[in-house]
């Protein structure tokens, strides 16, 4: 199979190069109270079968016959019990904008567009944490949202805005793609100054490409899929593909230390950036050259990477690019159980032969993925599927309630991909793994992109869901996964959740010394007075369990305000002090006052 399309998102773009209007209504093509595009969503049709609407994704228009059964059986939910969302934003629920008039006057003089419409402000008041989306759907009153939104067009616009913000003591919150899941975009309720959301979406150009050094200089507001599409036109790619890449921005990746699915080939964001330009209240930080590595004291990039909008605005980034790979191939391997799968991934990491992506889904996720299989058209395919199942479960003796699947993505020139593929399958075989075909692999990656849409579907039927992640040394992966799941189950029970929750995990990245583990967690909240609170307590307990089992506070989502309380424990109080002193020096008046991290 060639390089066709997991790029599920083929036809999509949300880049709008608008010139004259003052308002840049992302909300016209994107949901205001859920994930992704307005025209793309799951629903149960009149026959009770699930389908996915819209034309943007490869599973469009397909009927998913097993999803309803899976959904009802897993959650004890019913398609007859709906919990619909408030259809439209109620403007009266939005607190009036408290504007700093002097700032507004000076801003007008610069000609930089801005808005204080309720829709614009609410859209930028949240990320995609469960509690944020739940509140939007319920039509709850907002405590604090940005008072206005500005759309700088370039680095110099940002310099002007930050200068004015300092002059008039206005609070700035940078806004990129809005895909944060750490409460990082929430306005601190105690903030009394005017809060201005600085939307970087108009800074979305590739300024130049340097083919000699294979780097590109890009404005930081560019959205992941646009960056890849534009680079592809010139025959290049960055290879940075976080699961949120349809909507998340380059600046956001830098600010949260993002990680991409194909980091094994291309590296994580910190490996990809060569140069960063940041506008802070003290002025602009940047390095004087583009040397590929430097010994000039601690790397100042590492103050910026993961700073979560607390120091300034990332405006331009020089990052590595690669020629588009000649050949791409998906694959999958079925293992008898999770232990065997983890052992295989560990061995692959040890031999340093990980494909561009290798992920191990546990049994729950395997079954979930199965529920997303589209209707099979021919009897023959049905028959083949049946045979496969028979071979694996009966002939090979795999327990369908134990078996797990690893999904693989290989990239490179054809010959090497095939060689590489053989090497990996040979290792898998020593751990009892059976090759299970390209389709299963590809479906696994589709799941990644549609999972957030599925959460919206769940919320229509009394099911809340969220994901969280960690990184952990190899020898603790199994223990951590087991204990966190068990902890979630137990906490749900203790907190009165009436139905068995779904807890599922997958190993999504491998490193020399450990792995990244991603958890999904969902439950039917019928009968609970405050499902969001219950959910948050359970997630809190799960995070404590992660930390007690040797996992990190976060692998790539970041800290935001959601996980601030564990920072001291994670990096020591001296470490927090070091970060604080950088903040105090760069931003003494807390202009970048989103209060993330510290």
């Amino acid at each position, binding site marked *: 199979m060639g390089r066709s399309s997991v790029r599920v998102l083929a036809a999509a773009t949300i880049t709008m190069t608008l010139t004259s209007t003052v308002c840049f209504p992302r909300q016209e093509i994107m949901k205001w109270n859920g994930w992704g595009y307005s025209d793309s969503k799951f629903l149960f049709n009149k026959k009770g079968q699930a389908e996915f609407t819209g034309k943007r994704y490869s599973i469009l228009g397909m009927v998913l016959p097993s999803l309803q059964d899976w959904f009802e059986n897993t959650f004890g939910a019913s398609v007859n019990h709906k919990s619909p969302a408030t259809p439209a934003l109620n403007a009266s629920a939005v607190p009036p904008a408290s504007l700093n008039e002097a700032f507004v006057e000076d801003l007008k003089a610069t000609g930089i567009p801005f808005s204080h419409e309720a829709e614009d402000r609410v859209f930028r008041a949240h990320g995609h944490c469960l509690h944020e989306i739940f509140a939007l759907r319920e039509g709850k009153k907002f405590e604090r949202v940005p008072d206005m939104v500005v759309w700088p067009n370039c680095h110099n616009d940002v310099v002007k805005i930050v200068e004015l913000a300092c002059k008039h003591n206005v609070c700035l919150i940078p806004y990129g793609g809005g895909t944060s899941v750490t409460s990082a975009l929430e306005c601190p309720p105690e903030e009394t100054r005017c809060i201005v959301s600085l939307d970087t979406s108009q800074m979305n150009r590739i300024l130049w490409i340097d083919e000699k050094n294979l780097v590109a200089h890009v404005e930081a507001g560019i959205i992941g899929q646009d960056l890849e599409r534009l680079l592809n036109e010139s025959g290049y790619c960055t290879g940075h593909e976080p699961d949120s890449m349809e909507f998340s921005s380059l600046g956001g990746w830098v600010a949260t230390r993002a990680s991409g699915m194909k980091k094994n080939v291309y590296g994580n964001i910190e490996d990809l950036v060569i140069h960063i330009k940041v506008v802070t209240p003290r002025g602009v930080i940047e390095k004087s050259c583009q040397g590929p590595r430097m010994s000039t004291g601690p790397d100042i990039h590492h103050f910026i990477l993961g700073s979560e909008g607390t120091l300034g605005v990332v405006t331009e980034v020089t990052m590595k690019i690669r020629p588009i790979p000649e050949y791409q191939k998906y694959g999958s391997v079925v293992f008898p159980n999770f232990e065997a799968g983890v052992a295989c991934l560990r061995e692959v990491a040890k031999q340093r032969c990980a494909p561009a992506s290798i992920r191990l889904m546990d049994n729950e996720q395997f079954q979930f993925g199965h529920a997303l299989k589209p209707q099979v058209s021919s009897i023959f395919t049905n028959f083949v599927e049946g045979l496969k199942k028979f071979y694996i479960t009966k002939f090979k003796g795999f327990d369908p309630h134990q078996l797990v699947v690893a999904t693989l993505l290989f990239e490179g020139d054809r010959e090497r991909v095939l060689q590489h593929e053989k090497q990996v399958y040979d290792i898998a075989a020593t751990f009892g793994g059976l090759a299970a075909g390209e389709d299963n692999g590809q479906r696994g990656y589709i799941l990644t992109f549609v999972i957030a849409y599925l959460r919206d579907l769940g919320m229509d039927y009394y099911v809340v869901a969220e994901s969280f992640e960690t990184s952990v040394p190899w*020898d603790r992966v199994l223990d951590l996964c087991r204990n966190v799941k068990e902890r979630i189950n137990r906490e749900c029970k203790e907190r009165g959740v009436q139905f068995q929750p779904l807890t599922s995990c997958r190993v999504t990245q491998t490193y020399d010394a450990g792995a990244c583990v991603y958890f999904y967690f969902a439950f039917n909240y019928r009968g609970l007075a405050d499902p969001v609170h219950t959910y948050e307590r359970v997630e809190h307990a799960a995070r404590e369990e992660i930390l007690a089992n040797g996992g990190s506070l976060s692998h790539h989502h970041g800290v935001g305000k959601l996980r601030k309380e564990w920072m001291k424990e994670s990096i020591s109080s001296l470490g927090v002090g070091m970060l604080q002193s950088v903040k105090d020096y760069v931003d003494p008046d807390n202009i970048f006052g989103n209060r993330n991290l510290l």
Partner: protein
Amino acid sequence: SVSSSFPFSLLSISSSDETNTIDGFEDILEERRNSSDLKYALRCYAPVLYKGVTPCKANMLKNIVLQSDQLHYVINQVSQESGEAPDIIQEEASVILEEMAHRLQISTVRFFAFALSKAFKTLFQHVCVNEEGIQRLQQAIQEHPVVLLPSHRSYMDFLLMSYILYTYDLALPVIAAGMDFMGMKFVGEMLRMSGAFFIRRSFGGDKLYWAVFSEYVKTMLRNGFAPIEFFLEGTRSRTCKSLTPKLGLLNIVIEPFFKGEVFDVNLVPVSISYERILEESLYARELLGVPKPKESTSGLLKARRILSEDYGSIHVYFGQPVSVRSLAQGKVNRSTYNLFPRHIPRKPMEETQSFVNDTAYRIVRLQEDNMVLKPWVLMASLLLQNLEGLELSVLTEQTVWLRGLALSYAAFLDWPDHAPTAKVVSSSLALHRGLACVSGGRVSLVVGEPLGPVTPEEALFNRAVSVLSCASYRNQVLHVFLRPAMLAVAMLHLSDEVYNCFSFLWDMFSNDFILCPGDIVQDFEEACYLLVKTGAVQMPQQDIVMTDIGQPTLSFFNGLLEPFLQGYQVVCRYLCEEASEGLTEKQYIPAVRSFYSVLCVFTGNLRCYEVLSSDMQKNALAALLRMDAVRKVKVADQVTLIVNKMAVNSIDDILGKNRMISHINQTQISPGLSLVAVAEDLYRDGLTPSYIR
């Protein structure tokens, strides 16, 4: 107020409930008496295991252990230190494991099921098990690795445990047993095949042994192959008081939780209460210095005559499973284990050590709380305070009074329903006719008649055997009364500053009784609460005042602890007056014994026989060591005791106010005659095993 500040902690779970009756017990012998033992032994046995794991063959288990990273690490370490090749060390490890490992076989279990059915029916009237506890255990076994922690009063304990689990179709435990059983060739192997694994009694510095042992236990625990059973007290309590818990195995079974290898570990305290202990008089003799018979098969066969006696009933109470995870919540930060490879053995951190220690005490207290007490233990307590004997009617009356007191202190008392008190008393006396007898309306202790002429020291010894045997029943009720009794003593004798005195006693007796480290204030409050509750004292403002009706309670309590106070005092006396320089630890026990015998022989008016018990002597010494009144110094292979006479004297003073023993030193013993020398002569003949038939 005191009552509101009385902490109803973990400990009150089982015993604070005053309606705690023994209704929930089922007599498992009843069915055995009505149906075929053979059928029972051969019936289908298919217990549910932890999370449905498949049972692991003994050989596979050994392989997992021998291939573990943990063991490999230690093998390499030992190999580097000793210069031996790793293969050789690995071989050694394999031999150790071979010697240690169980070889559970269902056929052997079935044999025991048959044989024990026969034996139990002959020996006991009832074997009662709390059904609820069995249900809880069944649940727990499926959810988490389970550690069974029974009390240990008899050899019978672990056979009985396995017998019960087999009866209820529960997973059979693997049991840590002392190596001494291995001496009983055939029986040792039988026990091994019924799930026992054997550990050496001491292997202090042997890294390899420790590694094999701990990995063996942890492997079974982590995989949930079988419940693990061991005795927290380490050995059978010869006194029937709970012993200070040993922490080694508990550390091992808890560590997998701290390291995240298991989600939780459930500790299940099990209280096994015997109405009559098979080893009753054997224990008393052992405590008096007659070496215990070496475990041998022929010895066991001789014990057959035991089969002709009635040992009453047994109550086995399976306690609420205690979740280590819940206990450790907020006490141990598990993330401190994150920075060290988990397969490298490490001394537990201080935080962990104190947690494990605390947990061990709590479990032993739970064992105590769930011990079923028979009327006889109340009667024994009264008899011991009246060694000259007392009227049957008085004993009956006082027993009734004591029953009321015990019940209001939430004792788990098995008092027959609807039976007249006189009947209860007389049937207790009948069952224990070897210990007490009624003659002419007076009840007194039975003293064994030795063959031939009786020397004074022989008389003393016989008397001591009967007192110590009787004391082993009184001891069963001590945990119920201990705290208020210490307060009573503090009030009656040492009343200057009641709390200080209480805490002195608390500290002094913390080897003799189960007093959780750090619980002193809590225990004091509990003591106050209980005494106030029964109206024995009042607490206007900060004072503690005895009430008019409190007199009998306080003086009973005082009498209850009297033997301990006196015993400790004798030890202090000995150390101050008689102990020679260079007294070694080995000499200490016989020397105290002789000292006391001589005192008795010369003065004839001493009655604290319990000080002859090596248990009390050891505990007293431990207390003095803890209080820095005595130091241990190691001189060339010998441990010598250095006595700080001033300190010992002042402890003696505090203990001895108003006590008759303080008059003893006025008794003149001819100067120049070494008391110890005399005693040794007297004693050597008196207490050799040959003396006892």
